[in-house]
């Protein structure tokens, strides 16, 4: 089993792209059940950590700018680490992530072995 980073991204800034309060409310249950389902398979390596949506970026010239990134509209809403054999299995888990219903996406990165 390997650890995979699942990063949930969506556009949190554009007003038109925001879900209605009702959609958000329903989404909470969907998230809880999705996490519960992954944990029930003993595949949750590290539970969700919420992050500040705006954030900051330190550029290579050491200037600090406020997030989210201007190039891409989305920012990280949260991330979890799951256990999966390979990318295929991690993709399968990610395909039922509720962020997809909210127009977001999930970035998947396999943990790399520092020695390797």
């Amino acid at each position: 089993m390997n650890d995979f980073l699942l990063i949930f991204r969506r556009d949190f800034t554009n007003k038109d792209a925001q879900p209605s309060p009702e959609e958000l409310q329903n989404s909470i249950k969907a998230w809880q059940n999705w996490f519960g389902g992954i944990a029930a398979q003993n595949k949750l390596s590290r539970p969700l950590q919420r992050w500040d949506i705006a954030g900051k970026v330190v550029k290579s010239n050491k200037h600090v700018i406020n997030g989210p990134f201007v190039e891409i509209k989305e920012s990280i809403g949260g991330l979890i680490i799951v256990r999966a054999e390979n990318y295929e299995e991690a993709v399968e888990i990610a395909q039922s992530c509720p962020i997809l219903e909210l127009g977001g996406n999930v970035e998947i990165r396999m943990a790399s072995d520092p020695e390797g």
Partner: protein
Amino acid sequence: MVSVLCRLFGIAHMEIAEDIVSETFLAATEIWSTKGIPENPTAWLYTVAKNKTKNYLKRDNLFQQKLSPEIQYHAAKMEEFELDLSVKNIGDSQLAMIFTVCNPEISTESQVALALNLLCGFGIQEIADAYLTNKEVVYKRLQRAKEKLKEVNVRIEQPDLTEISKRVDTVLITLYLLFSEGYYSTTQNTTLRRDFCAEAMRLTYLLTAQERTNLPEVNALLSLMCFHVSRFDARANQDGETILYHDQDESLWNKELIDQGKYYLGLSANGNQLTKYHLEAGIAYWHTHKEDTPEKWLQILELYNNLLIIEYSPIVALNRTFALAKAYGKAIAIVEAEKLKLTDNLFYYSLLGNLYTDIDDTVALQHYRQALLLASSNADKTIITKYIRHLTV
């Protein structure tokens, strides 16, 4: 009594403490059987124990044995020595003993056995009965654990605040297991099982009665125990067969214990830590509502989700999927259940059997048959056979 004496002698001499106590009870059996039970049996026992302790200390002194500084100290004060068997000192000593027994140096299994033996006064035979094993196994386990305790030669004293927060997790795990040993044990001996549960509750209560150990998670554990025990009378029929939750006669549930459970659950809602005991107490609380409401199962599902995120266990994963079925329907739950792949677990198959019933009875039957193959206890076999019979008529 053993706790009080151990605290006096030091853990290295716990056999002496145990000997004095068993001699006291032996004397009681002999004398009471000829002369009848004294007016105040407890006081009688305490007096005899006190005298035996004094004699022991004197003898020890007389023979000029290699005495530990502690006993020497006490022996020097022989004349004014008084064994304090007041309720308060017994409570304090037992509390100190809980923290001594729940030493991370010894295995959790041994901690439970030690607690049963030293703190709750269960004999080796009784412990062996509960674990469905023989006396030798228990005896060896206890001896090893006692040796280990001596090796680290811990002082029996109530730990300070920082030590408490470090140790309380271990203590709660042991008390939780002690309780579970009584509640879920496969032994048919109902009286013994009740006693185990009662002892676990007594010790947990002891923790809540002390300011330093009256922590939110301790109250959560006590609440959980109250809710569970409230169903004790309803969970078996006269032949000792298990009655499952949804078939239980609600009027047999103990209202008083349910109320106590609610009381401690209220007290547990303090601080900023949500432990597994809080979540399990919450689940047990919702189970005291017999009626199936959508809210009930949504709440239970949410608690199970959080419980799994804190700590995975196959049985919690299965229970979570059952709650999912209750909240969102069997079809959704089947998809989730089949992802669990707990193919060596009989409850995995009996859950699938349950979920497929009325959806695809043939598949349900296959799952129940698989569960029956994996079942080892008679209680499990009886229940599964009932379901199979139900599906085949």
